[in-house]
C-alpha cells in the first residue's frame, strides 16, 4: 500500500509556538511536511496558490493579526475547493464563545495549548493518530 503523508499547514503568528510545534513533531517522530502561515490571509493565499499540496490538514490558532482564526474558518468553509479540509483549532483561548464559533464552523478538534511542553507533545501525538487515519 502506498501511503501518502498528509501535509500540515500551521496557521500561527507566535514564533515560539511555531518552534513548539516543530519540536513536538520531532519528539513524536512525525515526518509530515509542515507549512507555516502567520495569519489567515497568508494561509488562504498558500492554500489557493497550491503551495500546500493535497492531502492537507490545518492546525489553526485563533488570536492572530490581520485575519483571525474564526474569520479564516468562515472564509475557508465558503470556498468550494477548501471547505472540506480538516481543521484543528489550537489556542490558549478557553472562551466559550471561541469554542462555539469554532465548532459551528465544523472543526475536527479544539486543543487548548497547555503550559507544559510535555503535555503539548501528548496532544500532538493524539493529532498524529487522527491524521494517520486520513492517510490510509
Amino acid at each position: 500500500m502506498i501511503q501518502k503523508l498528509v501535509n500540515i499547514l500551521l496557521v500561527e503568528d507566535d514564533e515560539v509556538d511555531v518552534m513548539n510545534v516543530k519540536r513536538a513533531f520531532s519528539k513524536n517522530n512525525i515526518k509530515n511536511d509542515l507549512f507555516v502561515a502567520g495569519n489567515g490571509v497568508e494561509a488562504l493565499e498558500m492554500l489557493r496558490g497550491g503551495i500546500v499540496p493535497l492531502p492537507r490538514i490545518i492546525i489553526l490558532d485563533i488570536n492572530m493579526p490581520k485575519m483571525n482564526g474564526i474569520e479564516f474558518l468562515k472564509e475557508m468553509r465558503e470556498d468550494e475547493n477548501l471547505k472540506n479540509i480538516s481543521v484543528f483549532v489550537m489556542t490558549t483561548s478557553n472562551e466559550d464563545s471561541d469554542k462555539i464559533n469554532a465548532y459551528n464552523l465544523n472543526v475536527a478538534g479544539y486543543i487548548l495549548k497547555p503550559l507544559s511542553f510535555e503535555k503539548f507533545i501528548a496532544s500532538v501525538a493524539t493529532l498524529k493518530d487522527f491524521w494517520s487515519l486520513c492517510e490510509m
Partner: protein
Amino acid sequence: MIEPEKRCQEELTALKKEFEEFVYIVSHDIKTPMRAIVNIATWIEDDLGPDVNKDILDNFNLLKNRVGRLENMMNALLELSRVNRTKMELFEVSIPKLVNDCIEMLGDTINVEFHLTYNLLDKKCITLGKKLEKVIYSLLHNAIQFHDKVQKNVFVEVIENETDYEFVISDDGPGIPEEVKDKIFSIFYTANSKDVVDSTGAGLAICDKIIKMVGGKIQYAPGLNCGSIFKFNWPKTITVNN
C-alpha cells in the same frame, strides 16, 4: 431618564465593556509569553542532555514551578472577575447529594473521615447549584489541604431555617493564626508560605465573592481545641439579575 442619570448609565456600560476586554487580554495575551517561558526552559533543558549539573536542573524546576504559579494566579483572577457572569443557572439540587458530589471531586480521601449532619425540611431546593458546589468544594478542599495530621476529620452541618441554609464546615487541623484571620478572604493571601503548601490563595476570596453575591455572609472562627470553623448562610431564594 434625566440627563446625569443617562450619562452615568453610558459610563457604566463603557466601563463594563472595558473590563470585559481587559479580562480577555489577561486571559489570552499574557498566557502566550508565559507559555513561551516554560517551553523555552524545557527546550534548553532538553538540549543540555542527560549530564546536567543538579543545581541547573533544580533551577529549571523552580523556574517552571513559578510560572505554573503565575498561571494559576491568572486563572484565579479570571475566575474571580467572572463570578457573577458564568455558571449562573438556577436549578434543583439536593443539598446532601451536592455535598457528596464535592467529596467525590476531592479525589483521594482515604485518611479523611467526613461527619455529615443535616437538619433540612426539604432536601431539595432551587438555587445557583454550580456556585454552591464551588463554595462547598473549596472549603472541603482547604480543610484537607492545610490539615497537619495523617488522620483527618472534616465536619459538615447544614441547618435550614425560615430564610436560609446555614452551613458549617469545620476540621480538626491546625486552624488559622488569630492575627491573620482578617486577611484570609483577600485574594492570593496564604497563611503559610506558598513553598509549604503550594496553593494559589484564591479559594476563599472566590467563596466570599460568591456568597456576597447571593446575599449571604461567610465567617471564620477558630475551633474549640484546634481546627477551623467556616460558617456561611445561603439564602433559600436567590434572584438573578441579568
